[in-house]
């Protein structure tokens, strides 16, 4: 056949080799056709040999099979559950999917095998986080068969030797995005080695890449990283210095942390009115200028247009020190200290610094976490009092604090905002709602639905429309206990002539909300049913 292909490739007009079957058993068949032109002969030989080859096709031998998955020990989702899950994937309803998976996890039901490829392909971090515990034996096994799903193993197991070889190759040859990912994976299992990979070539990277690679060191950060990060403080690029400083101040025993604490202590001082400590007063005294060392520690020497340089220094310095430091130093509660800084010329800068510090250190130390709620209360008060850019800034702070707050406090805080809101102010408060940790508590869910019902029963204008929009979030966030309350009949205000559009839109939002509740309810019911059949 190879000889025939050679002739056919260049054409019979250019290759004048004789067209013959050689020893091929089909040769006689072609001779019997009495074809005489070279082209027909070529085609007939090729066709006969092709069919001959097809008829004699042998399989590949000695193929090894996969080592099969272990038997599933957990409960398997029913087909109905599978159908509802598949709908969630197909309609790209990420929040519903997260809710479903969370519900399955709570009842130790694992994902049905046929949906595993779809779900493992989901790139959404929230879905992945909920998916990990419900993958079951089958899902973990499957993820090991396809390199695209290695994120499962990165989360749940150490890197094997072959993984390391693969990572090293990606590290040496990959794009910056791939290299970041390698660094992140390796940091999770072996932080020291990750740093050792980074060090030799770090200085040759572009400044922007140096910053992005440094940021990956936040995972698995320890005192062992200090010498390298200290070295980065001498970097030519201010952005790299600042990134290194941000990491160093998260190490409580680093020398940068000590320097920052000393600077902060010089900035904030407590005055007590005579002997009575009833009315504490904090005074902020920013440095007049910063020295070379401070500059090296990531304290900016230039402010962006429109920002005061000294205020920026205060924010940076206070933001680099755990807020618990102040409560200990002055032996006063966070709320008292917050009030003590009021009316200082640098009040705003100190509070911004504390808010950033509370977020930065809140995860690691409980005493700093205790600052989140008092700070929230401060910014909520400011949002209520102020107008314009001050109000916008306060709302930004509320937005950043909300996801880290203990969920009870967060819900309380949101309720307080809603009840305090008047006129069109609540629109901004409603925009915080999606950030509230989910699922909501039953008490908050009920209370919130009451508020929505009150507005929708009364208003027909844009206010009603804005509140009905919040039902989108509520439909995904309220817990099962509130479903009945949510499904009670909705009394909507009857339209005035001018607002028919709004009333229609509100009606549609309520309809969608009820559909979502219905879908979740059937999912929850099916989970419960799987549990009871298991038991019987």
């Amino acid at each position, binding site marked *: 056949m190879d000889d025939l292909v050679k002739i056919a490739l260049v054409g*019979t007009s250019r290759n004048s080799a004789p067209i013959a079957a050689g020893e091929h058993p089909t040769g006689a068949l072609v001779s019997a056709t009495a074809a005489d032109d070279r082209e027909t002969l070529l085609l007939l030989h090729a066709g006969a040999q092709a069919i001959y080859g097809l008829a004699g096709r042998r399989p590949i031998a000695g193929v090894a099979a996969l080592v099969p998955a272990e038997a599933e020990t957990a409960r398997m989702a029913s087909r*109905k559950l599978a159908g509802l899950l598949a709908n969630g994937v197909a309609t790209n309803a990420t929040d519903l999917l997260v809710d479903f998976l969370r519900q399955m996890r709570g009842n130790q039901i694992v994902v049905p095998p046929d949906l595993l490829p779809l779900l493992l392909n989901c790139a959404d971090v929230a879905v992945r986080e909920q998916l990990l515990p419900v993958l079951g034996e089958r899902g973990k096994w*499957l993820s090991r068969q396809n390199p695209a799903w290695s994120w499962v193993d990165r989360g749940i197991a150490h890197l094997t030797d072959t993984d390391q070889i693969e990572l090293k190759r990606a590290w040496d040859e990959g794009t910056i995005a791939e290299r970041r990912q390698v660094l992140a994976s390796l940091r999770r299992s072996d932080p020291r080695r990750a740093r050792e990979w980074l060090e030799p070539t770090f200085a040759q990277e572009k400044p922007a890449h140096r910053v992005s690679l440094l940021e990956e060191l936040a995972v698995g950060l320890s005192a062992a990283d200090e010498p390298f990060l200290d070295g980065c403080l001498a970097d030519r690029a201010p952005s790299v210095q600042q990134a290194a400083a941000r990491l160093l101040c998260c190490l409580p025993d680093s020398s940068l942390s000590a320097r920052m604490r000393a600077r902060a202590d010089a900035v904030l001082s407590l005055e007590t009115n005579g002997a009575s400590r009833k009315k504490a007063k904090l005074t902020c005294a920013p440095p007049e200028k910063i020295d070379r060392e401070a500059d090296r520690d990531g304290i900016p020497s230039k402010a962006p247009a429109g920002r005061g340089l000294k205020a920026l220094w205060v924010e940076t310095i206070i933001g680099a020190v755990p807020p618990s430091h102040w409560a200990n130093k002055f032996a006063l509660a966070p709320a008292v200290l917050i009030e003590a800084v009021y009316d200082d010329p640098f009040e705003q800068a100190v509070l911004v610094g504390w808010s950033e510090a509370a977020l930065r250190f809140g995860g690691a130390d409980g005493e700093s976490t205790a600052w989140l709620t008092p700070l929230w209360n401060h910014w909520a008060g400011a949002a209520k009092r102020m107008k314009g850019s001050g109000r916008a800034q306060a709302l930004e702070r509320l937005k950043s604090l909300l996801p880290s707050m203990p969920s009870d406090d967060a819900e309380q805080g949101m309720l307080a905002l809603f009840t305090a809101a008047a006129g069109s102010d609540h629109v901004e408060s409603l925009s915080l709602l999606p950030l509230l940790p989910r699922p909501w508590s039953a008490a908050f869910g009920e209370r919130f639905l009451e508020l929505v019902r009150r507005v929708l029963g009364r208003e027909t204008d844009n206010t009603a429309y804005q509140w009905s929009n919040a039902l989108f979030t509520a439909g995904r966030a309220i817990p099962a206990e509130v479903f009945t309350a949510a499904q009670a009949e909705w009394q909507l205000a009857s339209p005035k002539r001018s607002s028919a559009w709004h009333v229609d839109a509100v009606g549609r939002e309520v309809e969608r909300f009820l559909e979502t509740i219905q879908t979740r309810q059937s999912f929850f019911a099916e989970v419960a049913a799987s549990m009871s059949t298991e038991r019987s």
Partner: protein
Amino acid sequence: MVNLTLEQVEEMAPDAASAAAGKKLVGIKHWPELGRSSDALWGKCQGSAVYQVKIDLSNLGYNCSCPSRKFPCKHVLGLLMLAVQSPAAVTETNSPDWVDDWLAKRRARDEKRGVAEKEPLVVASTGPVDQKAKEKRAEQRGANVRDGLSRLDLWMKDLVRSGLAAVETQPASLWDEQAKRLVDAQAPGLASRVARLASIPRSSPDWVGRLLAELGRIQWLIHAHNRLDALDPLLAGDIRQILGWNVSQADLDQSGDVESDRWVVVGQWVDDDERVRAQRSWVVGRNTGRWGLLLQFSVGGQPFPESIVAGTEQAGRLMFYPGAARLRAKFAQREGAVTSLVDRPPGFDTIGDFLDHATAFLAKQPWLDAFGGVLRDATLVPADTWLLRDRTGHALPLRGSNHWKAVAITGGHPCDLAFEWDGHCLRPLGLVIAGQYWSA
């Protein structure tokens, strides 16, 4: 009792949107009236109007009074899903008149077709004038086809004279143009065979060899057609079918090859080439172990004439088309209800056994290019080229590179896998594991 799985009902949907719309109708609140008997399943669905939905359980024929142009429409799908998911919601009762009337009409039509099948002469004896005109048309078509084939012969010679390397830079319209000429020459079967060649150039490192092989097989087809009268009549019939002659009902009746068995639909796929959708379903008889290919065509979004669902089985008589290989078939009669697989499907224990089976067919009809089969205790092996492995460690390559759903379902454990083999790679169609059928 509707003995199907939810997945099988979804597979019946013409598109994903219809399946999703059907799912929304599963709630019992959409169905003010619902019922089933031993023959039928019916319901009234509250949409923008009240629609009457009827399903014939003996062959999954359906009808809905809604104006939708999707077949089956969402109401039919919703009713089937509801009956599958919550059988208790559909109570057995006497069918209302509107269901009885529809069933009676269907039965009458089937009977009429049955009579026609038994007495082909009724159709043939419509008068001497018609008969003469028919013969003349057939003669004319024969001449057209002969012309078309000799032009194709010249073109192929040109192709190999100037060299297949030149094909690499040619647009796909090179093949389309020849295919169109063959359609004009009334050889539509050969036309689509030529059109399919367009996918070969540059598709693999050995594409020149593959293209030459296919051109060679077409050359043999031309050669065989030139001496059609000297051939075995059955093989001659095959060649006429490959070129594009339809087999008339009368021919089918005369061929008389009817097999009674319990037929398992092991797998199915739809070949969609924009104009025509061809549904290919592979069936195997539980008792005879005989294989058949049920082909149905649909043009312009019309439904396929019959509901054939992968992973189901039904007793009945299958009529095999005349030919040397006798692979293509159609239902002459269905008996009893359609049910999901009741047991593992018949199949081959090793790939060697299957290849021997395919070779036996190829020896009878050398232009065959698709062989259905089931490999028992098969496992999938993911790799750059995926493999299907039998229990002895022998394997054949799989078509495509995403068979993760099948791997996930089997967990690497052996399953019975249905496929279609084209001589180069296997197209997985469905698999059975732990008594459950899954489309692949």
